[in-house]
């Protein structure tokens, strides 16, 4: 459309962009929930009293859509506890008391890759899931019925949320791992090309990935305009290969598989060393943090330990988030763990923690102008209020990726994302009731 404006310009606040990632010392206790991915919880295979080393399997996948979990510290399993996830579900979690030695399990060895099946199985064994925040089990992305359907490997280096720099720092420090992983994936899976999408505001990462692309003619870097939500899967697919994916459509329909850069780096390191996913780079920032930085954190570390490593709180925090300020999830305290898909933890002081009161909709149309997929949040809110499922279907509410652009720009400070979520749920229930008839 000639006059369209989509997405929003956000303050970048990439305070930690040019820092080195620093490894934190082993925490005293790690808590590994058996769900850190999309899918069924993994089943614990250890019990209280067992000794584990880094890389020891502590929970195995229980279904096709599941992922294994490995110990991130060496020590003793304290107990299998109940853990309350952010979505309200309670799942078992393996609690390990660290012995401080950080001993690596002896069984760790690089996997043997002979063909497609062995590569997909190896990635499954690694426990690697989408590290950009979604947590989708990575091997399932490649395990498609028709392998020739994957024409493009699309690497998501957009990192469009404010504050977060863990992907861009990883792109610089893990260049070789990324190059290696891409080569193996393309060779073994028969994928003809790779496009690495990076937002313009990351010059160091662009340079690093251009070096990777220079060594392999199948890889190219696409520099993307810096506009949120550039890293949203559908937005990225649109801006790189030009395909428009409707609600429910996977990137495979456009011949793509989309992976986050940190996920690819993790695959590269796993293929070379055999070390499964036990640590990751986390951006620590926010107005309450004394020394914002990127930290290499063992998975399962309590947030309190991570913040303590960053100089502690310089102001009393009032809000702590997993992820970025747009799509991040608020957590009730800092005792929760760093999960596989935690790319950032942010702590905000009081002045930023509370949001302004919502007013009535003034019909300014800003929400529509900025929605990256052309939705109409103001009308969706109204249809939800009127309990009008038919209208919600027409308004294509399932297309909403909950990116937050609408609520960000709304001058009346309306809770549009929450409205959209509730509307989706209402529509789902209405459809289920219809089918049940």
């Amino acid at each position: 459309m000639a006059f369209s404006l989509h997405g929003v310009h956000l303050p970048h606040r990439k305070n930690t962009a040019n820092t080195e990632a620093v490894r934190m010392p082993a925490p005293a206790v790690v808590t590994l929930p058996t769900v850190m991915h999309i899918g069924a919880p993994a089943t614990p295979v250890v019990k209280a009293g067992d000794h584990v080393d880094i890389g020891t399997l502590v929970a195995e996948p229980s279904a096709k859509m599941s992922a294994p979990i490995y110990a991130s510290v060496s020590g003793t399993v304290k107990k299998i506890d109940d853990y309350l996830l952010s979505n309200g579900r309670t799942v078992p979690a393996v609690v390990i008391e660290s012995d401080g030695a950080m001993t690596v399990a002896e069984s760790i060895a690089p996997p043997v890759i002979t063909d497609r099946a062995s590569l997909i199985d190896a990635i499954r064994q690694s426990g690697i899931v989408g590290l950009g925040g979604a947590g989708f089990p990575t091997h399932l992305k490649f395990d498609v019925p028709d392998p020739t359907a994957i024409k493009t490997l699309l690497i998501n280096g957009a990192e469009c949320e404010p504050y977060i720099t863990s992907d861009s720092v990883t792109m610089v420090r893990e260049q070789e791992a990324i190059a290696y992983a891409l080569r193996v994936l393309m060779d073994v899976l028969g994928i003809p090309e790779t496009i690495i999408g990076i937002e313009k505001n990351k010059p160091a990462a662009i340079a690093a990935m251009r070096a990777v692309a220079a060594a392999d003619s199948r890889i190219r870097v696409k520099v993307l305009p810096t506009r949120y939500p550039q890293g949203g899967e559908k937005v990225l697919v649109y801006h790189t290969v030009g395909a428009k994916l409707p609600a429910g459509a996977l990137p495979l329909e456009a011949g793509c598989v989309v992976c986050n850069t940190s996920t690819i780096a993790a695959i590269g390191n796993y293929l070379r060393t055999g070390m499964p996913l036990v640590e990751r780079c986390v951006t620590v920032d926010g107005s309450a943090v004394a020394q914002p930085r990127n930290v290499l954190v063992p998975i399962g570390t309590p947030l309190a330990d991570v913040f303590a490593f960053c100089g502690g709180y310089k102001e009393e925090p009032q809000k702590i988030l997993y992820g970025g300020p747009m799509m991040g999830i608020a957590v009730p305290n800092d005792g929760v763990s760093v999960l596989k898909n935690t790319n950032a933890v942010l702590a905000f002081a009081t002045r930023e923690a509370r949001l302004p009161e919502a007013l009535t909709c003034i019909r300014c149309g800003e929400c529509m102008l900025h929605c990256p997929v052309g939705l109409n949040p103001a009308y969706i809110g109204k249809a939800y209020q009127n309990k009008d499922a038919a209208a919600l279907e027409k308004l294509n509410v399932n297309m909403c990726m909950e990116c937050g652009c609408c609520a960000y720009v709304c001058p009346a400070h309306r809770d549009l994302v929450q409205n959209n979520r509730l509307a989706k749920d209402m529509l789902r229930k209405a459809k289920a009731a219809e089918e049940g008839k």
Partner: protein
Amino acid sequence: MVEQMHLSSGPHIRTKRDARVIMLDVVIALLPAAVAGVYWFGLSALWVLLVSVAAAVGAEALFNALAHKEQTIGDFSAVVTGLLLGLNLPANVPLWQVVIGAVFAIVVVKCLFGGLGCNMVNPAITARVFMTLAFGSLATSAFPVDAVAGATPLAQLADGGMPNLWDVFIGNIGGAIGETCVPALLAGGIYLLARGVITWHLPVTFIGTVFVFSLLMEGGDINTALAWTMSGGLFIGAIFMATDYVTSPATPWGKVVFGLLAGIITCLIRFFGVYPEGVSFAILLMNILDPYVDSWTAYRSWRR
């Protein structure tokens, strides 16, 4: 360990640009026109503006109190309505009529329909039309400048005459307080564009359509067409009143359609209708058509 963290749904950051900031921007944008109006028409113009704003704010405050609703005058929308209404009136209008108009705008058009965001039509424009119909003489009244009795430029043009183009541009003519000084209105418009309160689509299309229509009606005479375009309430209407969020389309194409139709209706009334000025009626009619224009021009998200 810190406990009891504040929990809320994302996004956790919001724009600083809220409804109050937008209203203040509109007030600032209208100040040049207000100053020009007081300059050309004298202190009685100032009284009209002050009474209009005071009556509007007072009416809203009183309504909210009587209806046991939350007080909303802090969002400045009543100030904007009062100011716009005042700027659309001639300086010699009796102050009691101003009060009635302001109360009508706020209570009937806005509050009774549900308050901010719920009005079907633009409060200031509707009150102006109401006053024209109720106190008839306003339709053609003109406060003479320099105590020289004269018809407004629109009346002159309708009679086949031609006003002085520079006078029409600078505001040295009869008319409503805020509608005469084109540079003041343009300055306000540019400020609103720069602040992102309005986009160019509606005002440019509205004014452009009137210009082209007038050009055709005047057989290609550019000077007369310019006189038609700069006279009357077109500039203030197109920039400040048609662009009211609540009663205009949300998408750019919608705004273009609105501007086009409003321009055509304005000219139909000016050239073929009984009233010399058609802007108020055009905007009012388009406000009523607005939901249809919105649904014709809504964005379509990706579907199979």
